[in-house]
């Protein structure tokens, strides 16, 4: 084997890792964008919701011993928590400046972190890759971990389900109309509050699902949320706020940028995504898929 083919193999491996990493970013950015698009607020607890999702996964897995139960029940539990937050904390802020909801979710972040520390301790928890998904598979250019392929598959499934739900169903039509003009929808007799409630819950559940999926790939600890929040914001800013397509493209791009930097200059890997964001901002302040005037 010569050096050229070895390099190619390595690059293919890193590219693939980047897509798996990016798939998790996509989950995060999608949740943020859906909530922002409908309710017009930024969830500053999003990173911590991701962290709580990972812990909910650990919790369910300990009780049931099944990763599949964790994958399903974890996001549902956290999503239910999201419904309560929307109903009792976000909704009272209707009519106040949008900064207020942002600040509230920021305060909620503290509560989530300390809540998890009280329930599960301050140290990190191990989250083993489920047995049926461990191991590697040969894809011709190299051996890839099955779990990462699984993560990409789950995210692709969620994307298809979201697309069908939004574009091909009556509820999706109402949601899209609500993002454009909630007042008209209210006049037409749609219970917009209930819509906001469920959309908020959905966004939260998506972040939690990202947390469960990422748990075997990165360490689970109460502080992981703050790191993830910065990453989720960078991805959202790159893609353009409120654009679902932007979230998907930017999430994958950011994952690839991070893992390729890890290959070429490992010490720059953590900086790469944010530098990429700054670069995008200088060229296109509204993000790759954002509409001018929304944020910039």
């Amino acid at each position: 084997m010569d050096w050229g083919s070895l390099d190619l193999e390595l690059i293919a491996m890193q590219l693939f890792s980047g897509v798996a990493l990016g798939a998790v970013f996509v989950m995060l950015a999608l949740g943020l964008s859906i909530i922002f698009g409908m309710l017009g607020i930024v969830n500053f607890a999003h990173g911590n919701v991701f962290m709580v999702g990972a812990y909910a996964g650990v919790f369910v897995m300990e009780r049931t011993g099944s990763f599949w139960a964790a994958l399903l029940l974890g996001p549902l539990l956290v999503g239910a928590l999201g419904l309560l937050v929307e109903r009792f904390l976000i909704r009272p802020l209707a009519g106040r400046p949008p900064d207020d909801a942002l600040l509230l979710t920021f305060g909620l972040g503290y509560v989530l972190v300390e809540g998890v520390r009280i329930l599960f301790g301050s140290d990190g928890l191990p989250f083993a890759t489920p047995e049926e998904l461990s191991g590697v598979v040969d894809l011709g250019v190299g051996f890839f971990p099955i779990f990462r392929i699984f993560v990409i598959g789950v995210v692709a499934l969620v994307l298809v389900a979201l697309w069908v739900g939004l574009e091909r169903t009556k509820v999706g039509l109402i949601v899209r109309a609500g993002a454009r003009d909630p007042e008209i929808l209210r006049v037409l007799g749609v219970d917009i509050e209930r819509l906001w409630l469920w959309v908020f819950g959905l966004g939260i559940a998506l972040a939690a699902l990202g947390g469960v999926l990422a748990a075997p790939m990165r360490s689970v600890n109460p502080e992981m949320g703050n790191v993830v929040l910065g990453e989720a914001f960078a991805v959202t800013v790159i893609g353009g706020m409120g654009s679902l397509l932007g979230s998907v493209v930017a999430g994958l791009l950011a994952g690839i940028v991070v893992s390729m930097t890890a290959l070429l200059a490992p010490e720059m890997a953590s900086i790469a995504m944010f530098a990429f964001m700054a670069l995008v901002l200088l060229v296109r302040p509204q993000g790759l898929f954002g509409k001018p005037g929304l944020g910039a």
Partner: protein
Amino acid sequence: MQPLDQTVLATAPPAPRRSPLAEGALSRWRAPLSILALLVLPFLLPSQALAVNVLIYGLYAVGYNLLYGYTGLLSFGHAAFFGTGAYVTGIAIGTFGLHPLAAIGLAVAAAGVLALAIGAVSIRSRGIYFAMVTLALAQLVYYAALQASGWTGGENGLRGFTVARIGLGPVAFDILNPLTKYFVVLAFVGAAMAMMSRILASPFGSVIEAIRENETRARACGFDVERTKLLAFVLSGLFCGLAGALFAIHLSIVPLDSLAYNTSGMAVVMTLVGGAGTFFGPFVGALAVLVLEDALSLWTPHWQLALGTVFILFVLFLPRGLWGTALARLATMRGRP
């Protein structure tokens, strides 16, 4: 997306959160009165170290308040300026053996230059977008400091630059004495407060408040909104850099945490709890949060649960903060609208 557009175009802007006493006597004497209040503070608190922290975090929140409270820009990345001030001070003294006063000057300048760079990238984005961009850029600075561990000490923090005496020539104060240290720090903080009062009373101060109240109208009046915002951002960074420099000298160590998200959040919490857009509010907020921490951490390591809960209650029920609400009450009692 609709709510955003509405806040820009609607005839009724979001309820202003500034003190209705803006033109009163309290306002004219705000800098001397603030310094007077801070002069007695160390004798009211259980420890002088706590009092010094109130000064430093108060100044940090004052700098932040110029941007959030007065200009209406919600930044979540001010740890970048606080931490840069702290690191530059530590490196200038520890590595290059600079005089502490020169180190502080250098640190403030460095924070200003960084604010110019971050401001230039982020100022074009508005509203909640701005909060996300500043947060992400501050993370960039955090990771850069983590990687440059040869300079910054990485995760262990920066050590080895203890300052025992501070001053010029024969006039030097022994800051190993806690009370002397408090008054030395207060000299810097007091000067900064006087400067801040001047800035707010200047035409520039009126323009930033105009931008906060209605950016579109300020632009229509012919003000260069972008440059004004950038100037406010840089000034805010300078004050936070000074706070960071004093923090480094106070602790004799710079933890990596001084650049972290939580430190950015602390400026937001203290400013809002005290009263955004009020002159003395940030100190009240710093005092309230630090006393809460001091009292609760005796009982439980989970004091931030209380901090988060208190903060949520403030957002819901007392968005003007402690000082802002007190000022509003005072104004009502005097019969002013």
